């Protein structure tokens, strides 16, 4: 398979390779300045990447990481920014993604971009079809795709439509797609944000493997531990400027050094301290059953019962596909599944959550894990998104008070520290982490009593994570019932009072904070459902 071959440059593959590589710079970006409507997203940023290395880039939300990569890959064409780029010994002035791909630069964006109704194989070879004289060879397409999928460890038929895959699996398809091209430099923008610990480890293994093929890799992530584990060199950006670049061979390569450079101060705890004040039961779900919307024989949530009390933070742990999101979405206005049965009680009374409006009226909020698809209107303003689920409190006789709306948006922007110059900026122009905060603000605006938070810190930087945890604590402190779904066990262990484990749609157990460990949760999470 062509794409997997080491590219044809003259890096010695024998002994002494490391020393030589260290001096062999494949990419040099110099004094890059890029502005959007007068606001600088990048100011004189320089970056040099050595051939065959894994180069980590970290920085707060909105620091300019994605923008820098967009500049590199031609998303922002040559001429729309200042500074120079040199790639593989040549000056690079890419006018489009195609130009950079021709040179062997492949970027996998933070927001995945697969065509939902096409199959995995079709997506992998989109624009690069396995065809002769314009006629696609389906056998070759599917067979090549199968090999690539094996390489990324995705056990799905190549003919499966993308729409049937969760975000995590889609990420793997993106990587398989990158492997199908002649790639010299692979850029991964937060590739593990949507993956659970196990799949992340798998992916990071894959990336380490690239090194042996001589493929250079730039990886952006907010998971500092994984950046440390995988990178040879790390660059820290803050407010659109390079703070420092250091080698992992450096004596001080600790996480706290990275954090200090990122946020400009040290952060002692990952999780803010909190004394739980737990009150009466707020939410009780009994015998909740949900079937798959297409394959209506398949039970996705199986007889789930759980409770959440006022002021309590309850975690939902499970592997990818365990049914946590499906449970939450089916509870929230039956937005997932068919043949749903079961009962929901709020403060002891049975309530209906049959429609989204029922759920909202009963004080339930669901903060989706897939903000691009289910969460935000990217071509709407920050203010319109924030007010989107709760216009009734800002309007009279169906007429919106735009001043109240702006004031409310402004209030939440400050409270959540959303980085945007104005609340009338289009949400699509915000950095990924700040989009996540807008989503949170949108649901805080509805003043819910129960918050179902699905991966609330996906793609959020350490500092902001801390802020979001603080916010979750604060909301719990106000007596709200909090449910947190997360693929990061450490996160659940860090913030929850109680953790349910879900496996194959069944709640397989629960642990109080004091009794919970990674190990015993993992054991419950992998317990056979039936």
């Amino acid at each position: 398979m062509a794409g997997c071959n080491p590219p044809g440059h003259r890096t010695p593959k024998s002994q002494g390779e490391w020393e030589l590589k260290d001096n062999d710079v494949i990419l040099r970006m110099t004094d890059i300045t890029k502005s959007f409507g007068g606001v600088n997203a990048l100011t004189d940023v320089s970056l040099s990447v050595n051939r065959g290395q894994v180069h980590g880039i970290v920085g707060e939300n909105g620091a300019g990481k994605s923008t820098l990569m967009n500049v590199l890959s031609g998303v922002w064409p040559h001429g729309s920014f200042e500074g120079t780029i040199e790639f593989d010994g040549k000056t690079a002035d890419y006018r489009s993604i195609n130009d950079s791909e021709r040179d062997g630069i492949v970027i996998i964006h933070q927001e995945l971009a697969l065509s939902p109704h096409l199959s995995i194989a079709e997506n992998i070879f989109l624009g690069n079809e396995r065809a002769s004289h314009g006629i696609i060879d389906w056998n070759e397409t599917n067979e090549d795709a199968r090999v690539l999928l094996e390489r990324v460890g995705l056990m799905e038929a190549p003919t499966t439509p993308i729409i049937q895959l969760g975000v995590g699996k889609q990420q793997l398809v993106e990587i398989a797609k990158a492997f199908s091209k002649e790639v010299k430099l692979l850029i991964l923008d937060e590739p593990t944000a949507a993956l659970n610990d196990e799949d992340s480890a798998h992916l990071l293994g894959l990336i380490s493997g690239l090194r042996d093929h001589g493929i250079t890799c730039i990886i952006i992530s907010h998971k500092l531990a994984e950046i440390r584990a995988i990178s040879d060199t790390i660059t820290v950006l803050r407010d659109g400027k390079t703070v420092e670049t250091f080698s992992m061979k450096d004596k001080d390569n600790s996480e706290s050094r990275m954090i200090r450079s990122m946020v400009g101060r040290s952060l002692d705890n990952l999780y803010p301290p909190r004394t739980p004040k737990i009150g009466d039961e707020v939410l009780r779900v009994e015998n909740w059953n949900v079937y798959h919307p297409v394959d209506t024989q398949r039970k996705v949530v199986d007889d789930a019962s759980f409770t959440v009390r006022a002021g309590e933070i309850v975690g939902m742990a499970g592997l990818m596909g365990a049914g946590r999101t499906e449970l939450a979405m089916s509870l929230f206005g039956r937005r997932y599944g068919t043949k749903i049965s079961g009962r929901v009680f709020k403060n002891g009374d049975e309530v209906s959550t049959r429609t989204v409006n029922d759920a909202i009226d009963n004080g339930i909020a669901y903060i989706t894990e897939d903000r691009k698809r289910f969460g935000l209107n990217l071509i709407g303003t920050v203010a319109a998104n924030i007010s989107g689920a709760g216009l009734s409190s800002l309007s009279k006789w169906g007429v919106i008070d735009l001043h109240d709306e702006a004031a409310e948006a402004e209030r939440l922007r400050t409270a959540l520290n959303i980085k945007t110059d104005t609340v009338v900026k289009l949400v699509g122009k915000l950095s990924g982490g700040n989009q996540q905060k807008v989503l949170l603000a949108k649901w805080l605006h509805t003043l819910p009593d129960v918050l179902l938070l699905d991966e609330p810190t996906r793609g959020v930087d350490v500092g902001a994570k801390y802020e979001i945890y603080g916010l979750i604590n604060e909301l719990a402190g106000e007596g709200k019932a909090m449910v947190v779904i997360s693929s990061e066990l450490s996160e659940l262990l860090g913030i929850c009072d109680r953790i349910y484990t879900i496996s194959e749609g069944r709640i397989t157990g629960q642990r109080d904070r004091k009794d919970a460990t990674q190990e015993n949760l993992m054991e419950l999470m992998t317990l056979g459902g039936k």
Partner: protein
Amino acid sequence: MAEMVKKANVLGRVRGGGVNVRDYGLLGALVVIVMFFQFMTHGKLLYSGNVNNLIMQNAYVVILAVGMVMVIIAGHIDLSVGSLVAMIGAIVALAIKDWGMPWPLAIVIALLAGALVGIWQGFWVAYVGIPAFIVTLAGMLLFRGLAIIFLTGGTIGGLPEGFVAVGARWMPAWLGHFADGRDVLTILIGLIAIAGMVVAQMRARGKLKARGLPRTPLALFIFKNAAIGAIIFYFAYLLSGYRGTPYILIVLSVLVVAYTFVLNRTVFGRHIYAMGGNRFAAVMSGVKTKKVDFYIFVNIGVLAALAGIVSTARAAGAVSSAGTFYELDAIAAVFIGGAAVQGGVGRISGTVTGALIMGVLNQGLSIMGVDSAWQQVIKGLVLLLAVAFDVTNRRRAGDR
């Protein structure tokens, strides 16, 4: 200071009353086109009579485009409005001539018929889930066919004067004339419009002040109001030199103001934008998307009926071929006005400007005596260029 200006602009836009850069660009394009034809026609374009015709001839485009922009923002399309204009024309003419109804009642019946058609199409789109393209394509055939059936292939003419006035007459000169023969009432209406605009703008400014929010600098505020005021006055001045204020102009003004309000200020309007931007997210936020879709089609049904009434009145009769290609005029106006094909984007102000651009093109080319075949060629190219300009502009706006 620069910071302040930016903030003020921003709030202007939050309020929905402000004009954004794109609108300025569009307005600029309109001005350029007007000046071009003014030059090419040796000043004939802005003769009082021609300006009057411009309004009367293009009233239907504005009415249809106002409904169409909502449909398009929501991510749909409506191809049936042209046929509907013909069918409603037939109904209104039949009601007056054959059923002997007084014309105001006939108008009510026609509007109700429009609503009924809207309910019909809205039902299929919203509750059965058939794409609007298909539903309204079917409607296009259906209503045209019914128009022919109703009129049994012929025409109905000789409609009463009161009815014709709706589309083709002027408000009487109640206040007499100036020495040079200009209509006093028209000038007065112009002044009232200017005063209304200034008062509304000042109240909005006052509200901003009361809440301690940043405002447009006073100089800019005054300049903006003065400029728009001058345009309105010049317009009124031109009209007063012909037969005065067309009734239809009043109707159009009310529609434009009302629908701007609906789109910018109401929950319904906001839901349309939310659905067009991301339907899934709208559903997950509790927007009743089916209901909104339904009412969007009811709305355009009624507006298409109004357009049917107006064009029948102007023609003083009903023909089954009326309204041919009207849907395309409306759609073109909406897209020239800056709406996005994917939905989620679009404004009334842009749409009206788009309609005016098409109207001025029609008018200018006709005065120049350009053959109607060539007129179509030119209009097609203008549509393509306008949208191409917009698309590239938007792409560039991301990176400057």
